[in-house]
């Protein structure tokens, strides 16, 4: 990381690991190629433009809760492995050629130990294939030991719920199949201090991945964490809207300047400001492990047509260091059946048809382990209870029957029973007595098991590294 020159910054970046009292910290340029490594492939042209600008590190997050609870609960990836490897290969090749750190967080969609090991195994193979010189690789693991957590909660430790959830209970832990802790910048900084050229982190807060090298370079926390906040989704902070295009952030002690590397996008004051509020509750405050970024006094100024400067972000340390826990638990096996309805009479009485199906299900399956959900596309399948339109305006309806049961056999029967009964719904006055429903095919479609989020909590720790395990190895 201690490089001698950088074409994008006016002064060379400082080597990490030195105290900021040695000399005033200089600027540092971070290249952000994607908001979710592997989710869809990185656009190569703008990435290579960014590489040619000589960034001081390439940083990418590879995970998210957006994909729902299944990948974490089942400990599976959500992205095709070929896309993950495409993105890793691009970044790895560029970072090793530049001789700068490559920092990847939340490996393989969920940041479980499986994801970290999978990425590490791929990079070891790739390094051999490419014959790159020896380098140092850090892997940081973030799986939560559920037994240890149970002991902790049983002993009275308070694990606060986020977003209106009550504190974590032993029942919540029992309902959890897999959980991860979300690391802050500290474990990544530790890896940098230990000379890592490649860092593969388990679940990590997106902004901390970018903040870590900036903090190690001596830049203030206010601008370092804010830079992470702006850069973590790559081209989402630019306009027009586009994903997977690279963005370069040049960070100096008082400011960050963001610039898109694609030739058709611009980073404008509005595009950056609007990104501050993207998929967040609060556009003024970004809560992270150890504190929050206060964006109340942020100023957004255009540097030119394509670049915008942001100043005025502040870091407010928390009184106690907390780490977020994410957990998902298996609810049961799941199966689907797809049904179409064209008879206007049945459409007008679709609620009665659903009630009929429910009744037939209830005659055979009882108990909380059996669930059937009717997703009525054309009525309220997308918005559910939030749907303000009550009147059905469609001439045809699609119903997806979603069944959940403890075993594959039971769920197949459950979905079949619920689905086929649309054929036999006894609606008074119905003329089409040969069948009141069209089956896409007369079969139950197996689906991935059903999971739900069981943990969205924060736990207090004495040491930011406490819930994480760092390993460093020489590769090549």
């Amino acid at each position: 990381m201690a490089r001698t020159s950088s074409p994008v910054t006016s002064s060379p970046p400082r080597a990490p690991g030195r105290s900021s009292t040695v000399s005033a910290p200089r600027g540092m340029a971070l290249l952000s190629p994607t908001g979710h490594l592997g989710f869809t492939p990185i656009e190569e042209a703008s990435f290579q433009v960014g590489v040619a600008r000589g960034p001081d590190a390439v940083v990418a997050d590879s995970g998210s809760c957006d994909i729902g609870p299944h990948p974490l609960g089942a400990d599976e990836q959500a992205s095709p492995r070929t896309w993950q490897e495409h993105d890793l290969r691009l970044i790895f090749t560029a970072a090793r050629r530049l001789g700068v750190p490559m920092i990847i967080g939340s490996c393989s969609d969920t940041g479980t130990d499986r994801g970290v090991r999978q990425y590490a195994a791929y990079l070891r193979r790739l390094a051999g294939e490419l014959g790159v010189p020896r380098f140092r690789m850090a892997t940081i693991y973030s799986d939560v030991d559920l037994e240890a957590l149970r002991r902790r909660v049983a002993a009275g430790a308070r694990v606060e719920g986020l977003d209106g959830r009550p504190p974590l209970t032993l029942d919540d832990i029992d309902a959890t199949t897999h959980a991860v802790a979300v690391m802050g910048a500290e474990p990544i900084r530790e890896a940098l201090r230990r000379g890592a050229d490649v860092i593969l982190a388990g679940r990590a807060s997106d902004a901390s991945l970018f903040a870590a090298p900036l903090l190690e370079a001596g830049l203030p926390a206010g601008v370092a964490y804010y830079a992470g906040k702006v850069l973590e989704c790559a081209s989402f902070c630019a306009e027009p809207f586009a994903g997977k295009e690279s963005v370069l952030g040049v960070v100096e002690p008082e400011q960050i300047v963001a610039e898109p590397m694609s030739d058709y996008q611009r980073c404008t004051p509005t595009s950056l400001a609007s990104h501050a509020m993207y998929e967040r509750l609060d556009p003024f405050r970004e809560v992270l492990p150890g504190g929050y970024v206060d964006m109340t006094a942020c100023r957004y100024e255009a540097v030119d047509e394509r670049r915008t400067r942001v100043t005025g972000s502040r870091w407010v340390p928390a009184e106690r260091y907390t780490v977020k826990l994410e957990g998902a638990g298996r609810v049961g096996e799941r199966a689907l059946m797809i049904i179409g309805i064209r008879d206007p009479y049945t459409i007008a009485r679709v609620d009665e048809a659903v009630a009929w199906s429910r009744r037939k299900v209830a005659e055979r399956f009882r108990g909380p382990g059996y669930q059937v959900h009717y997703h009525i596309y054309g009525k309220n399948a997308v918005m559910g209870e939030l749907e303000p339109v009550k009147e059905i305006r469609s001439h045809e309806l699609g119903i997806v029957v979603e069944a959940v049961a403890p075993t594959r056999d039971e769920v197949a029967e459950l979905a079949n029973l619920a689905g086929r009964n649309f054929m036999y719904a006894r609606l008074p006055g119905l003329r089409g007595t040969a069948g009141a429903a069209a089956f896409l095919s007369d079969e139950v479609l197996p689906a991935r098991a059903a999971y739900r989020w069981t943990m969205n909590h924060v736990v207090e720790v004495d040491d930011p590294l406490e819930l994480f395990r760092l390993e460093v190895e020489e590769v090549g």
Partner: protein
Amino acid sequence: MSKLVELASTIRSKNAGVDHITFDILFSDPAAYEQVKASHVLTPERVAGLYHVAPERVVRFVTFDPARAIKFTIRRDQPSGSPGEGDVMGSQQYAPLLDLEVSG
């Protein structure tokens, strides 16, 4: 009277964590932003009414001048991706906002 869709440049919804859906309405025209703010067509109460949720489920409502944006967040009935849940990323919950009538 204008519709919100005619005044705003972006109207979007997205999950904010696993328990919330957040809504952003952004304006490229400063006058349109001020007009919508002044019209009170978007308030926590109006939003709760539009989506038929109890007022306490509208957990945050802010105006954000740097982005000329109005933003509110609704707590989900159950976490994203639970059985029976139809919009994992919450990205199709904004449609009812499009046709809101704005005075002025």
